[in-house]
């Protein structure tokens, strides 16, 4: 009888903990959305070159962060988790896009939208155009460093690489970019 009561109390406390965690995760999602959603979408847009896909990537990252809230329990960790998730998912999108573009026929050109205009403005930049020629890791390192203004440690955390690798990727990316821009000029 006592064991049953203890089990019931334990189950009740576990259920209460789950409810509290869920409520805290919901709150964290709302707060992080209001403060970082736009910048994360823009970061993803720079990586995947498509606003709709960027939004989906960021929303997937928020959902994943909500599920991992019990492990995070901190806004800073959650933001780091979000960045890492966005970078990883953007990389997956690009990898998947390569396969799709290789096999799928060319779609009919659609009417350009306002979003397309915004991304087209970005695409018209010679620097961004040169950025497309870089390998994904170098591109990620540059975007995280010069758009998100992250430190080497944060970039290392977001890309799940070491700080030395961040330095190396950044330096090689800058050299390649310089070469491309000088050649085009």
């Amino acid at each position, binding site marked *: 009888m006592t064991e049953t009561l203890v089990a019931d109390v334990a189950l009740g406390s576990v259920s209460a903990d789950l409810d509290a965690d869920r409520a805290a995760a*919901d709150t964290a999602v709302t707060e992080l*959305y209001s403060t970082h959603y736009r910048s994360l*979408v823009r970061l993803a847009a720079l990586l995947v070159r498509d606003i709709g896909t960027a*939004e989906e990537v960021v929303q997937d990252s928020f959902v994943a962060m*909500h599920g991992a809230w019990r492990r995070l329990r901190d806004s800073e960790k959650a933001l780091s988790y979000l960045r890492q998730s966005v970078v990883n998912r953007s990389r997956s999108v690009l990898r998947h896009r390569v396969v799709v573009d290789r096999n799928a026929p060319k779609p009919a050109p659609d009417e350009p939208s306002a979003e397309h205009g915004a991304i087209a403005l970005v695409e018209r930049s010679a620097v961004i155009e040169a950025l497309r020629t870089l390998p994904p890791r170098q591109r990620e390192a540059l975007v995280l460093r010069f*758009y998100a203004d992250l430190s080497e440690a944060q970039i290392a955390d977001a890309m799940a690489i070491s700080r030395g690798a961040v330095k190396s990727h950044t330096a090689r990316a800058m050299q390649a970019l310089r070469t491309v821009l000088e050649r085009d000029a």
Partner: protein
Amino acid sequence: MSTINEREALRRAFHLADGIEPGADGLQRIQARLRPPRPLALAWAEASWTYLRMRIPDELQRLWEWLLSVTGRAWERFGPKSGTTGGVASRTIGWLRPAAVLGVTIFVVALGTYVAIDAQQAINPSASNSIHSGGSAGVSGGGQRNPGGTNSQGHSALGSTGTSGGTGKSTCRSSGTSGAAGSSSSGPAGQTQSSSPSVSPSDGPGGLSPSPGANSSSSPSPGATTTGSATGAGIPAVGSSSPGVATLPGPRVMAGSVPTPSPSPCTRRTRRPGSPAPNASPAVFSYGRLNDGG
């Protein structure tokens, strides 16, 4: 290009992306994906409802067109001929055809309905019994229905005995059970003496044991009329009349006629083996008298 200039150029180029504005429904989409999935049955129900909602207008349209075509064909087949020339009489005759078709249709529908109801009663007779007896078992001793109620021994308690004067007598009075049909008799002249023709045999213990001579009818005074209609229901046929004196139910007896023993079960059961049987059917007699009188 110096390193600082390169970095500034990169920053400026990247910050062109600040013009990108994501959709405003991002949080709603995230929250929608965070909700637990709907139950499968609900999803199926919603999908089915959507499918039906899309199909119902088409089906209604098809049904309406079918009705129109059937009606049009029936009108062409049975309607009055428009080419008929003539006066009012011929036009009236032209309408006889659709009227006849309509009448036949109504007759067929009514017949079908009647047959269907009858078949239902034949299939489930208990339901029909309960319908007729108001839910209670209304079958009395001889299998007759007893709309007034149920006697525990199956004897009918139909009718009542009303006596007025001193000559009104109850009929088929039994000692234990009231198995006789209720009758009301009125003795004095000019008063109505009525008895119910729905007589049910009483087989109960101590049933009918009147005295030998008392099973004959009473001697109504001239002008007394015995009718075959029941007056009242549900009251046991125990009257204030003296036992053994019975007013026979059955045919109407006109004034001046000599009533003869009725072939009702009461009198038949009380007749002794040696006693003479009634020589004529009361109905025949009565009707003969009626005819004679009329």
